[in-house]
């Protein structure tokens, strides 16, 4: 049992810590699969938009750990890790990864039920492979919901009849076989979907009071494989469950299955839209003070360019570095690097008020140039009179946004303040390095100390390094040797943990520059990541006010020694990509990368993310290359999901950065990309108009 809970904590430690800060209401019942449903059966509902639902289910048949995400108001996706003891013979447990997808076809109305269509396990081993269409109607003031549906695959295995879809075509008569070997796993089994025999299922959920709910269902799953492989007894198609919703948002159910087994499950939902401290808990900004004359401020245009000017100190107190300033007539232009606020809009708002309080009354226009990694990324123009008029205006947020101007700042107009370079920074932190869903052990991780340091001799030039000393962990216990027929560009990952102690994670020189209007450049050389060193160059085109960006990257990478010190192995490769980025609006981001991957394979990566305005991000990606599914091995092609949670979302404090991870069902050598830090798109976009607008509510905070 201990192992089960370790898995749970490993899978979701980050998200769980979030749930302690703020759990959301679960609005629909959750099945043991962690998707909208009764017990084993799905319902015709979906979750509340944006919700992340974590479910753990333990019965004598299987353990299931599921992360579901309501991607859009109608669409959800789930990733599941299941363990079935002795499924592959005594002592041989089956560790299974599966993905689900569901879509709400019809919303419920007064007379009509909601209707959803779903695919279970559409890209895994096919263990739970099934499809359904279900309808759910709420009655009696929403306390009662009745579900009926039709299922295929496993959900069409009990009380089945020939497929009604056969009236459209004969192809629906027979269901495909699914993967026959591990190397076929991971492909979309389209020849199975909605094919073969079908069966009906249904059930009722009754919310007895605020806390207690009762569910009963008629299941259309015969549990054929479990019956033959682990001696499961299917005595009855009726399942029942009793659920209790705790005040902290955790929902716990006990249930009976098929007249022969019992199980327990728990679910928790969180809403990325609702952090515990929506407006943050950092100190108040300085208020706008009455205008003062030059004499009253004992101010002159020369002293303001000194490193110890009142303006410099006041900004520094806010974690904002003043890098340059120029006073011309009634306009002050400043160049600032925000080292503190996750929302650049907040840094702009605070800077504007500090400028107003520290510059004489005849200076009425403020131009704020944002700097990231030493390069200017945008210029925001604000008027003193707007600040004064809107400080406590009921509609101050959109009015101040509408009255601000945003433009590119390829060349800074501010004069550099002397003595701000070189800059030196360091940081000592603990780290957690997880490796999830290795087929032998679902959770491995190392914990240790990490030291990061950076030295900037001049604007845009950054010499930096990160070293780690693992203290405790089991990353090095992996015994699984790479069976890849491709160059081992990623499958040796375990060797890097096994054959190292003190680790140089990165040691690089980076140079950031602006080749022209809307253009950004980066050159990186050194030890780029855990497994590769080399050189990397990138150019990005991204207008400040646009939603579209293009980039190109070229790298020469050499595989590093397993000890993660200075040596290299004799594998080197030229790799690179052309990328297109598009912000669809509403928080939906798409990215397409086409090029050559680390194993020399050519192909493309498609990524899709949902980023909430507060920075909470959930996404998925897949890569198809000219490596055949066979040569790729288990999983057939590279794919995964990823999420990141901003520090300020969790804590409410004004601190940049976040926690996140990428979960791949299996890490192979095909479609593997070099992991260079500080790719330009993410460096640049925070200070561009779309992102500024997303968090503009913080301008006055």
């Amino acid at each position, binding site marked *: 049992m201990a192992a089960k809970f370790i898995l749970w904590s490993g899978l979701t430690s980050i998200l769980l810590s979030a749930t302690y800060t703020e759990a959301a209401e679960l609005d629909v019942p959750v099945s043991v699969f962690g998707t909208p449903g009764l017990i084993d059966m799905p319902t015709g509902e979906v979750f509340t938009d944006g919700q992340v639902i974590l479910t753990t289910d333990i019965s004598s048949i299987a353990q299931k750990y599921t992360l579901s995400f309501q991607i859009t108001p109608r669409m959800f996706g789930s990733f599941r890790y299941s363990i079935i003891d002795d499924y592959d013979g005594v002592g041989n447990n089956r560790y299974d990864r599966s993905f689900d997808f569901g879509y709400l076809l019809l919303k419920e109305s007064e007379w009509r039920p909601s209707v959803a269509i779903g695919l279970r396990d559409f890209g895994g081993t096919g263990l739970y492979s099934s499809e359904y269409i279900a309808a759910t109607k709420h009655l009696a003031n929403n306390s009662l919901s009745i579900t009926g549906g039709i299922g295929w695959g496993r959900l069409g295995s009990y009380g089945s009849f020939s497929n009604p879809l056969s009236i459209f075509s004969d192809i629906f008569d027979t269901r495909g076989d699914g993967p026959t070997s591990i190397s076929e796993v991971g492909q979309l089994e389209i020849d199975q979907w909605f094919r073969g025999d079908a069966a009906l299922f249904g059930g009722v959920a009754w919310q007895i009071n605020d806390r207690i709910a009762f569910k009963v269902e008629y299941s259309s799953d015969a549990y054929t494989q479990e019956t033959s492989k682990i001696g499961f007894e299917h005595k009855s198609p009726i399942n029942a469950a009793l659920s209790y919703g705790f005040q902290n948002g955790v929902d716990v159910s006990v249930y009976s299955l098929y007249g022969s087994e019992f199980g327990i499950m728990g679910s928790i939902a969180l809403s990325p839209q609702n*952090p515990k401290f*929506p407006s943050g808990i950092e*100190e108040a900004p300085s*208020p706008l003070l*009455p205008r003062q004359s030059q004499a009253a401020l004992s101010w002159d245009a020369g002293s303001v360019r000194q490193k110890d000017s009142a303006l410099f100190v006041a900004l520094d107190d806010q974690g904002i570095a003043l890098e340059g300033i120029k006073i011309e007539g009634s306009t002050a232009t400043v160049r600032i690097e925000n080292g503190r606020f996750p929302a650049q809009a907040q840094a702009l708002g605070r800077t504007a008020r500090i400028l107003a309080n520290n510059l004489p009354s005849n200076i009425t226009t403020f131009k704020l140039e944002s700097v990231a990694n030493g390069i200017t990324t945008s210029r925001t123009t604000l008027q003193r009179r707007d600040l004064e008029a809107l*400080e406590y205006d009921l509609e101050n*947020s959109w009015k101040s946004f509408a009255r601000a101007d945003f433009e590119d700042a390829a060349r800074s107009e501010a004069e550099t303040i002397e003595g701000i370079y070189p800059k030196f920074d360091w940081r000592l932190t603990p780290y957690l390095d997880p490796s999830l869903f290795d087929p032998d052990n679902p959770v491995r991780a190392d914990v240790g100390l990490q030291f990061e340091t950076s030295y900037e001799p001049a604007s845009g030039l950054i010499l930096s390094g990160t070293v780690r000393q693992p203290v405790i962990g089991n990353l090095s216990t992996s015994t699984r040797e790479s069976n890849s027929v491709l160059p081992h560009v990623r499958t040796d990952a375990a060797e890097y943990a096994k054959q190292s102690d003190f680790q140089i994670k990165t040691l690089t020189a980076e140079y950031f520059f602006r080749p022209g209007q809307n253009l950004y450049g980066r050159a990186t050389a050194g030890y780029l990541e855990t497994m590769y060193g080399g050189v990397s160059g990138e150019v990005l085109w991204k207008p400040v006010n646009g939603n579209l960006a293009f980039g190109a990257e070229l790298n020469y990478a050499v595989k590093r020694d397993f000890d993660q010190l200075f040596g290299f192995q004799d594998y080197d490769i030229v790799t690179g990509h052309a990328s297109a980025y598009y912000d669809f609006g509403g928080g939906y981001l798409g990215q397409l990368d086409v090029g050559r991957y680390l194993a020399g394979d050519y192909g493309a990566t498609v990524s899709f993310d949902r980023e909430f*305005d*507060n920075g909470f991000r959930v996404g998925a990606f897949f890569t198809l290359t000219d490596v055949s599914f066979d040569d790729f091995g288990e999983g057939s092609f590279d794919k995964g999901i990823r999420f990141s949670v901003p520090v300020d979302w969790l804590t409410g404090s004004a601190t940049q950065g976040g926690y996140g991870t990428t979960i791949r069902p299996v890490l192979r050598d095909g479609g593997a990309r070099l992991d260079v830090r500080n790719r330009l798109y993410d460096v640049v976009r925070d200070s561009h108009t779309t992102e500024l607008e997303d968090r503009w*509510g913080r301008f006055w905070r």
Partner: protein
Amino acid sequence: MSFTTALRPFGLALTLIAGLTACSSDPDNSNLLADFIGGKDAIEPDETFLAYEAAGAPELIMSLQSIPNAFTAFVRQTTNAKGEETWISLDRLSLGMKDGMIIATRGLGADQLAADPYQTLAALKAGRNGITERFITHINGESQAEILAFRCSVTFQKQAPVDLGGYTANTDLYYEDCRNTQTKFRNFFWVERDSRQLVQSRQWISENLGYVALRTLPR
């Protein structure tokens, strides 16, 4: 007047929840956890606050209804051309105020970005019951401004003496009952009878934070 030492500033309590363990050259990223473990209850009061307090600026005490014993002191720092005042606390929070009515908060975790309570304020000043409209702008969880509109009923309850510490004010107690389709709340206002000043009040801030109580201090 030495009451500041007895205060339990709650801005700090909120900050400590956010404590992350890390050492760094960046003071904004410093070792908050160490401060916490070190039992650093008494924070250093904000210098600007102390300067204004010493200069005799108007002062008030505010407490959070949702957390027992969480209270702090504010002084008025500045008043702009529109008569909107900014009050700052010793633990670096701020309030936007107009004649005792909150029009903004900063640093409370679930802040009011701005508010328009002027119809209610006018009714209280005039000493009459009435139906008013009140608007409140919050920062929501996605960092967006969100304006809520309420319909409120301002009603006289009773005459009530309020002990302000060394001075008892003769006040009229008013309720302001506000509601919209999602939310309802009740504010209290003790209005001094002669001056029509709000000397004490309970005012709703936001769903997450609840109410704060304010009491002016005689100077």
